[in-house]
């Protein structure tokens, strides 16, 4: 690795994205999965692999089939067609062996209203055969130590969510499934939970999560599968997907210099709105070229910012509509 030095860093951007992001050792293999509820086809021909130690995201709007896909992998739903292997186990046939080794947080789950935090953790810890995580430490890490004696119904949304994460981790699982784990939380609680998820990965666990928040996917996931109408429409690391589908970059700047428009037009396409110029180009070099042009012509700018596309834009490009629609 060190012998390659700066060369490998320079090369990284030019490697074919699929080869760079293919999981080395898949712990989850999903192939051709279909699931219908009556006439409604929730998931159609879904295939993906998840590598050991990855944070893998299923992203898409509500009702796209993310949860159904995840629940088939977890073994709580039986797919109509297709094959799934998790840690070498069949989620339908080996469901109990699988449950021993995975941790699950379900979307919109509840517990008994009057169960205490401590009781929930101690019940869960007795359901598994394998050596367990230390429940008390888990609660401390999740900031729930003082809530041990509190009834479930008295917890806030963030506390409930953290309790469900604790329950998902109680058996020290190899793979953790988190379904819409920050939905309904305020930004501060959300960030705290992102930290937790990164912590889970740093302990060598594989994490599969679903989200309809593109920011969450960009910040957390090593790779994402974009799901729409029950099908995976593309799959890759967030950076790869952006590079593949939204290579355009823009620079927005303000200047009073009358020569700016003409000078910048030689770099890329320019839109002007009074003193505000938007330069539309593609590729990572656009920003450098704009800066170079400005300094060459001695143009004084009062504002300068770059606009980079994200997964939100990728989604819009692939589906023709915003993820919130």
């Amino acid at each position, binding site marked *: 690795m060190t012998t390659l030095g700066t060369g490998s860093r320079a090369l990284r951007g030019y490697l074919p994205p699929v080869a760079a992001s293919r999981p080395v050792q898949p712990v989850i293999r999903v192939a051709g999965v279909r699931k219908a509820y009556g006439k409604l086809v929730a998931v159609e021909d879904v295939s993906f692999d998840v590598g050991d130690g990855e944070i893998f995201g299923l992203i898409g709007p509500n009702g796209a089939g993310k949860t159904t896909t995840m629940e088939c992998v*977890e073994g*709580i739903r039986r797919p109509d067609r297709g094959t799934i292997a998790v840690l070498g186990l069949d989620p339908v046939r080996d469901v*109990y062996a699988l*449950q*021993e080794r995975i941790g*699950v947080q*379900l979307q*919109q*789950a*509840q*517990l*008994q*209203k*009057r*169960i205490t935090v401590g*009781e929930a953790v101690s*019940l*869960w810890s*007795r*359901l*598994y*055969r394998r050596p367990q995580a230390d429940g008390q430490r888990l609660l401390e890490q999740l900031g729930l130590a003082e809530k041990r004696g509190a*009834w479930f119904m008295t917890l806030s949304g963030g506390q409930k969510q953290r309790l469900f994460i604790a329950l998902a981790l109680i058996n020290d699982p190899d793979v953790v499934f988190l379904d819409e784990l920050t939905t309904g939380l305020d930004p501060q609680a959300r960030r705290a939970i992102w930290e937790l998820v990164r912590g889970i990965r740093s302990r060598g666990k594989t994490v599969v999560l679903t989200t309809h928040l593109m920011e969450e996917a960009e910040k957390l996931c090593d790779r994402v599968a974009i799901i729409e109408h029950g099908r995976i429409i593309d799959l890759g690391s967030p950076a790869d997907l952006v590079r593949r589908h939204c290579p355009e970059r823009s620079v927005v700047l303000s200047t009073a210099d009358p020569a700016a428009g003409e000078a910048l037009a030689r770099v890329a396409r320019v839109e002007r709105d009074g003193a505000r110029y938007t330069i539309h180009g593609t590729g990572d070099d656009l920003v450098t070229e704009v800066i170079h042009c400005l300094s060459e012509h001695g143009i004084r700018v009062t504002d300068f910012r770059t606009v980079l596309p994200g997964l939100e834009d990728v989604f819009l490009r692939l589906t023709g509509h915003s993820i919130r629609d």
Partner: protein
Amino acid sequence: MLRGLWNLTWLEIKIFLREPLGAIGTIVVPVLLFVLLGRVAAARDAAPELAAGGVIRAGVPALVSMLIAVSAVLSLVTVISIYREGGILKRLRATPLRPATILIAHVLVKLLLTAATMAIMMAAGKRYYAVGADVPVFGFSLALLLTTWSILSIGFVIASVVPTARFAQPVGAIILYPMLAVSGLFFPLRILPDWMQAAARFNPLAYSVSLLQGTWQGDAWSAHLGDVAALVLVFAACTAVSARVFRWE
């Protein structure tokens, strides 16, 4: 196979007793009712012109037991549908717990609470009901266990069909109370028209009442083999049906 059963059962009992009306509804009210009816019956016995006193005395234990069993079933239906609606059943399934363990735990909770209520009732009612040589407590308890077990299985069928938790109690009541009305609990079935008597043959609760009243009066079990067979059949049929139609979410 039944790993976690006792943990879950014990926890569910504790949770149930934390409900505002949990202990009062299941234990205190039936015991008070029993003692109160006992006082009335005792007062009537004191007046020799009311020979019906003996009938009341034999009828009350069966009456109260049936009411407890039916309310246990209604409570089971409600709990199951609330747990289903809240995703609690689903969350419990996403563990190594077997589905049967989850449901058996709830049945055990109701059986244990029923047993506790009966035990307290026996103790409290000693003064009014001659529990001793002439009443086979063991036999009656066994009959009650069989009855409750069988009616609980009907509860699971009801829990499978109720659409939401809001309807659990009313739907359960609409199904169970008419069954209770023509079970021979409040009046003998022989005073009914023929066609209603025929209909009552398909009423599982009629067999429960017959068994409970019989065992309390000291009948031999051999006299009630038909009742036992009917209750076992009901249990088997309802368990088979709910195994097919029960919804976890």
